[in-house]
């Protein structure tokens, strides 16, 4: 993972933040920092407290206790000095009625005194120039998300907050959006985003915080988290290529399961196993699966990750 960090200042400092809703402890002692130019992900299943945490950092909600510093300022209560420097993408439906993509963007941009020309450039950045005159409600889910991000971006903020930007998108639209997000990071912006797609966070983020039940369970670069698991590598073959008992005999194989469709070998030394399989000509359709953030989540919570 390449890191395109800025001069290395600290953009966000969150210290021991708590938030209750009645009996629900939505945010339970969360602390983290985000560096300038960093792509920071807050991950976790629905109800983990990601959105509440994000809203407290944005200054939309007050924490019950704890402190937040954003670009050297306190975001709550509403801090007008901070507003032009942050961009917040809300739900995909946060638009005015009956306006085209261009009109939506120009209206939101004008709230920051941004010109139509800059708005047009932003539309270009998110790849919606050819949809400029389409009404917002006629856009696809992915296009609407990109428009929503453009609305948060037009005034050239230093920090961009995105709440589940890829939720409910089809795989192609998600990938298009990833390109947009990378392009934004390439411009030196700090991005904080929440998602429940762990695979996506692994690809996009410099660092992630894994949240569950209001607490941060782990926080680091995705690769570091996965490596820290010391989890075995799984080698998957089509059923019938190698017999289960035979596979158990291979050097380096710790465990073997065969469900009748595929045979899975667990190993911590994949090299000798792959060599043996290559000698036997059994590499067709072979899959090697290493640990992912989902395994990290499983390891941390003791339960299967379900978004």
């Amino acid at each position, binding site marked *: 993972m390449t890191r395109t960090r800025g001069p290395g200042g600290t953009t966000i400092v969150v210290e021991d933040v708590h938030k209750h809703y009645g009996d629900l402890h939505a945010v339970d002692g969360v602390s983290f920092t985000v560096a300038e130019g960093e792509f920071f992900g807050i991950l976790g299943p629905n109800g983990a407290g990601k959105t509440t945490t994000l809203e407290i950092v944005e200054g*939309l909600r007050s924490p019950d206790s704890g402190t937040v510093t954003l670009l050297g300022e306190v975001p709550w209560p509403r801090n007008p000095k901070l*507003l032009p420097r942050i961009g917040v993408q809300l*739900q995909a439906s*946060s638009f005015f*009625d009956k*306006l085209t993509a261009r009109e939506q963007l120009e209206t*939101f941009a004008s709230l920051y*005194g941004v010109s139509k020309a800059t708005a047009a450039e932003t539309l270009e950045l998110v790849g919606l120039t050819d949809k400029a005159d389409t009404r917002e409600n006629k856009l696809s889910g992915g296009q609407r998300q990109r428009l929503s991000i453009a*609305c948060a971006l037009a005034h050239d903020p230093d920090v961009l907050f995105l709440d589940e930007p890829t939720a409910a998108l089809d795989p192609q639209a998600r990938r298009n959006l990833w390109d947009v997000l990378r392009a934004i990071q390439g411009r030196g912006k700090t991005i904080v985003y929440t998602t429940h797609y762990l695979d996506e966070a692994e690809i996009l983020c410099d660092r992630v915080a894994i949240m569950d039940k209001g607490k941060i369970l782990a926080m680091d670069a995705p690769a570091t988290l996965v490596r820290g698991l010391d989890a075995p590598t799984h080698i998957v073959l089509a059923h019938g290529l190698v017999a289960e008992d035979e596979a158990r005999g291979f050097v380096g194989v710790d465990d073997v399961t065969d469900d009748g469709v595929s045979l899975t070998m667990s190993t911590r030394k994949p090299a000798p196993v792959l060599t043996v399989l290559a000698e036997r000509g059994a590499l067709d359709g072979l899959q090697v699966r290493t640990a992912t953030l989902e395994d990290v989540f499983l390891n941390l919570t003791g339960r299967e990750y379900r978004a």
Partner: protein
Amino acid sequence: MTAFRSLSLAMFKGFFRDKAALFFTFVFPLIFLVVFGLLFKDAGTSKIKIAAVGDGPVITALEKSGAVELEHVDSLDAAVAKVKNGDLPAVVAQQGDSVVLRFAASDQAKSGTVLGLVAGVVDQANLAATGQPPKLKLDPARVEDSSLKPIQFLTPGLLSWGLATSAVFGAALTLVNWRKKQVLRRIRLAPVGTPTVLSSRLLVSVGVAVVQAALFVTIASTPLFGLKLSGQWWLGLPMLVLGTLSFFSIGMLVGSFAKTEEAATAFANLLVLPMAFLSGTFFPLDSAPAWLKTVSNVLPLKHLNEGMLNVLVRGKGIDSLLVPGGILIGFTLVVGVIAAKFFRWEDA
């Protein structure tokens, strides 16, 4: 572009692209104008209908007077039977120089009117027969402007009601819709003050009201309806602004409580529709009981209606707007403060 201009523009565009909003703002009040206009056409006050038997100068004069309606009956006996049954209040019969009038004393008001009317016609005929010039001269003329047509009273009422409805709905639905879709939240995250947001929405409401009033009055002035505006009709403009302000504040209050557009619509209807009836929008409150007139005095629509009547058709001057205008301003302040107190940027 400034935030104020672009927000106003966004709302104007949204409004004029919304077919349902256009219908309810511009067409719906016109439907009422057509219905009430035709319903009350020529029916200022219902005329008395009496029986007429035979023919002659008196019967002809009565017919021409337009003061009574005549039902021609073949024989005097049949006509008298009708009067006895209470179907008609009186019968006039003329044969040669003798004029017979028979009336039902049970209906004193009507028979009195008929008696005076017929006596007057007979006297005139007698005077004409003598060939003498009349000694005393009567100069009758109505005090109201040109015509007594009901359209003169319907237009200000229906217009006030239309303005009230669109101001309440405009404010309430925008507020609910923006809160629900998080547009309010999005605006709050931008360096824009609440006065800018509020005043841009108000500008849109006033703009829509001006278009609505212009269209409504223009159509009411066509020969089909025959509205005749008084000379100082333009004084209706300040009234329009003050009325829009009052009902805008009601809309803000509704929008602060309602969570969905459906709820806002129901609340707004619940407030405006009964108010329209209680304020004499559709028919005058002259014959309403005293308590109802008292109730109507606390309703802003009554005063908007009154102010509009004064300047649009009664031909009164700016001083006639002081009381209605003052009440509307006071109402706006009170409801506005309450609405501000209950205002929420987001649900829960």
